[in-house]
């Protein structure tokens, strides 16, 4: 049952990303700031910190699948989100072993993760010539607003997800999770 729940939540978040810009006021969307919702990625950070054990890699697999989904549906350039999301989630999986999973670590790793993921996307798009934007402009106009807005999302979903995910994680470890 829970195995089905993760794909469902991630799929829902993928779809919600598509209408996210409608929810923002038009002035903000029309302006120079580029705010990109990374909600799927934010949920994957929760998964990697609270659900995955040191030896399991569920979140990396989901990052691959849903990264590819975002590529296919929203950009048409396959592989960019897939590669960036999966690699950064894998890095966070490694960092998590050093740090104990709590709220502050989540915020810290969330910022680091979104920073790295978006930077990778920028690097790939720039190298294929899709984007022509100076680095300082990118940091000011896209990186900063993107990290801030996704941080808000990360904090908002904390009460609903953190406890539940770590409980499911323990169930997965003891082996009596209802399949």
């Amino acid at each position, binding site marked *: 049952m829970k195995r089905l729940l993760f794909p469902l939540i991630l799929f829902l978040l993928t*779809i919600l990303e*598509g209408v996210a810009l409608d929810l923002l006021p038009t002035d903000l969307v029309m302006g*120079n700031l580029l705010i990109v919702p990374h909600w799927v990625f934010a949920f994957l950070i929760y998964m990697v910190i609270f659900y995955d054990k040191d030896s399991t890699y569920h979140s990396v697999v989901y990052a691959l699948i849903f990264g590819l989904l975002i590529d296919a*549906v929203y*950009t048409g350039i396959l*592989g960019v989100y897939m590669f960036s999301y999966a690699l950064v989630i894998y890095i966070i999986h490694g960092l998590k072993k050093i740090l104990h999973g709590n709220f502050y670590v989540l915020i810290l790793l969330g910022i680091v993760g979104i920073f790295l993921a978006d930077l990778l996307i920028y690097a*790939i*798009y720039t190298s*294929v010539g899709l984007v022509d934007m100076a680095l300082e402009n990118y940091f000011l106009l896209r990186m900063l607003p993107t990290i801030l807005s996704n941080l808000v999302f990360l904090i908002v979903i904390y009460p609903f997800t953190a406890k539940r995910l770590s409980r499911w994680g323990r169930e997965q470890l003891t082996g009596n999770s209802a399949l």
Partner: protein
Amino acid sequence: MQFFRNKRLFILLIGFIVLVALIGYSLGERNNLTTAEKFINDAVGWSQNIIHTPVAFVTGIATNVRDFKNTYEENQLLKEQLSQYKSLIYEVQEIEDENEELRELLGITETVRDYVPIQATVISRSPERWVEQVTINKGEQDGVRSNMVVITAEGMVGKVQSTAEFTSNVQLLTGFDQFNRISATISRDEEDDIFGMIEGFDQETNSLLFRIIEESDNDLEEGELVVSSELGGKFPAGLIIGTVKEVVSDQYGLTRIAMVEPAADIYDIRHVIVVDRSLDEPEEEGNDEEEDE
């Protein structure tokens, strides 16, 4: 330990190769999506349709409240404009009738301005802001094909980039570059029309770049209307694109570029019309042959 470190590096390298291959594949010349992509787009599109309805309802309420505030002022303005339009409508009708009669005399039934409209609703917008793309809820089943022009009531907003069975992706004017351009023209009363290409969007000034290929004797003026031209072959003439804001020379100083303000609000589109012109293509070919004989 050594083995694991190698394995990690190995996987990273394979991942990188897969990435390059996938990007190379999707950026290459391809006119149609693969079956898998079409299936994914349709499945996601179906769910987007469901999600979109309540979201549109909520945002609709917010817009309605905002609209109520300036209803009175708008009403005054519109009333004034209405009286002007009444005489204009009469004039246009006369001209249209006359045009039709003259066409019948000459035996021309189809014009470059004819098209079949396909109504569609925008169900999502790409969260990746560098890819200016929206998804609409009409696809190949409804007759949408790639490269068709998409307009709103105000003017052109983009063109269809790829189609699935029940949804299609529309590239917005703001995302145009030298690979995705449309031919446009500025109509002149007494001298030759000005032809050119819309081939990009300037983020800083929020205007389209209209490269002028063939210039008329007189200079462009501010506020002149840029419309689509039939010379591109894919879409009908006379669709409004925008108005000229400013004319500058390009980086080499060889051609001139007009900054065009888009007529449609590209950031706030909900309902669009896909312009289907393909119906008259076979007949056009037939006419050509007759002319050849």
